[in-house]
């Protein structure tokens, strides 16, 4: 393989619809056995990129290879969960499962375990049109995860799920990874970064950054936090827009050095906020998510992809 353990490689991928570009220049490598979380806000093109990786869509420009072959030629190596696209609403949950059981040669009985753990085993005789959004997601996840392939591509698998179920889904993903499978999980929920070996941020049509969670957290500029309601004033002293975290307001200081104190003092002077109401906070996945979605490309460092 071109890269020692790369199983999926996207090179210079551009994808446009009706001349409107969604992906501009995406370079991304997915390595054997890793769990890569692809993060980005809604509408940024995560689903489109996953569709290209799955061989479901062809890039307008660039290439996607899976095991060194074009992705469109290796449909036997991936299981692709696309939001709200797998299940037929007029059929029951069990009928949908039976359909994919016949359809996909690598479908396994693991769906029984997944349906049970995700709490939909008792609902399988009901038509999917009577399911909630979260139940549909659980059924789709049970189906997609039951296909025994080397690579899983999950599009927003935790959207619409309650927190206990998200933990169950995370456990399921960890089990897949422990079994040597490769997973790419697209998400706009910062908490999904918790299970990642690597995180890749999709912003402005390209991969803005990729790395381990620790690397990316360490690369963040100092984070300024205030408990006051001076969000408007805070905007004058930070990069990008302020955002709320647990009742406080945060933003990224312009300083990149080891000592953020001078920048905090500058921010206090610029905003008029009492310095005692300002603090430098420990970075979290929420900060990471906001950094790559709220700041412009010129304000961010470049990372490996």
């Amino acid at each position, binding site marked *: 393989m071109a890269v020692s353990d790369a199983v999926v490689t996207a090179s210079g991928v551009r994808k446009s619809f009706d001349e409107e570009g969604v992906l501009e220049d995406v370079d991304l490598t997915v390595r054997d056995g890793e769990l890569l979380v692809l993060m980005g806000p809604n509408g940024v093109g995560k689903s489109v990129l996953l569709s290209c990786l799955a061989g479901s869509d062809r890039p307008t420009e660039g290439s996607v290879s899976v095991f060194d072959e074009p992705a*469109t030629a290796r449909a*036997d190596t991936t299981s692709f969960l696309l939001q709200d696209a797998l299940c*037929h609403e007029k059929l029951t949950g069990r009928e949908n499962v039976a359909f994919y059981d016949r359809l*996909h040669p690598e479908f396994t009985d693991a769906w029984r375990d997944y349906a049970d753990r995700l709490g939909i085993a008792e609902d399988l005789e009901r038509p999917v049109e009577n399911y909630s959004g979260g139940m549909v997601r659980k059924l789709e996840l049970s189906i997609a995860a039951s296909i025994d392939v080397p690579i899983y591509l999950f599009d927003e698998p935790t959207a619409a799920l309650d927190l206990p179920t998200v933990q169950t889904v995370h456990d399921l993903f960890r089990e897949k990874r422990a079994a040597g499978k490769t997973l790419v999980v697209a998400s706009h929920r910062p908490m999904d970064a918790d299970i990642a070996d690597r995180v890749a941020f999709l912003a402005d049509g390209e991969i803005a950054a990729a790395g381990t969670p620790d690397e990316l957290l360490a690369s963040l500029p100092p984070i300024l936090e205030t408990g006051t309601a001076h969000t408007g004033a805070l905007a004058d002293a930070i990069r990008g827009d302020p955002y709320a975290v647990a009742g406080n307001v945060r933003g990224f200081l312009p300083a990149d050095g080891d000592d953020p104190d001078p920048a905090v003092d500058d921010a206090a002077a610029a905003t008029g906020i009492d310095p005692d109401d300002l603090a430098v906070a420990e970075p979290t996945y929420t900060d990471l998510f906001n950094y790559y979605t709220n700041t412009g490309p010129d304000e961010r460092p470049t990372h490996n992809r």
Partner: protein
Amino acid sequence: MSTETQTGRGSDADLERNRQDREPTRDRDRDPRRWLAQASAFTRRSLQEVHNSWLLLGWVIAFPAIMYLFFVAQGTDGPATADAIISIGIGVMGALFVCLYLFGDQLAGDLEDRRYAAYRSMPLSPAADLAGRMAAGLVLATAAFAATILAGVATGAEYSLRGPESIPIVVVAGLLTCVFWMVVAIPIVLAADNESVAEWVSSLVAVAAFILTGFNGALPAQSPIEGELLNYLPNALPTRLLVYHLVPTENWTELGAAPPAMPTGLEFVALLAGYAIVALVAGTVLLNRYAYDRGWWP
């Protein structure tokens, strides 16, 4: 920045299995058991969808029989064979309605709900997809036609096989006709790019063909189309073949079924087969190219 990561690894057996999974499986793609399993998946799902909706089931199966009963209830003075001719014309319309409306609606639903985005990421055979959908369409079209004929029998219409050869001719003509008209639904669905529009257009095609050809060619006097053309149109030809082989009469002119003369020769069955083959090739190409994005031919 280093991008080396700690990744979870399974046992050597797991990894070896993954390596085997990565070998190209194109030979397995041609496994007939896999092909049949995929075709049956589409067949069963299509039938389950109709079975799960009594409204849809009644609409596609009972609609032509009810239409025939309304026609008879208005009072017809003709002989029992005339009612049989009318029932066959309406029964074929019911079969065409299933082929166009139902087949098209289910295909449009899969496209509109983005299920083909998922199918394209799977090792599916487009030909199995098409064959499976068609098998379900054939079952339902046969049921719609049979329901209309049963309604005819119940109201005294007279049917009889012209000879032993009539059985295969009727079966083959029905099958070929359904194949042709299901494929007609595919470009309608692809061009409409909208499930509701596709439903309306496909229904309109079935009704327009029925009216413009005089009960699908069963009653040429009620069609603006004159001459031999009715014996060559893909909706009128099979209807007239079925009428000839299922209605025990020779007084075609008196019953309004002629002119033109009835299509009695095997060459007309061959022509119908030609239509179906061309349609099947076109349908395979369309599905392969536009739904699966895999080129012009599997």
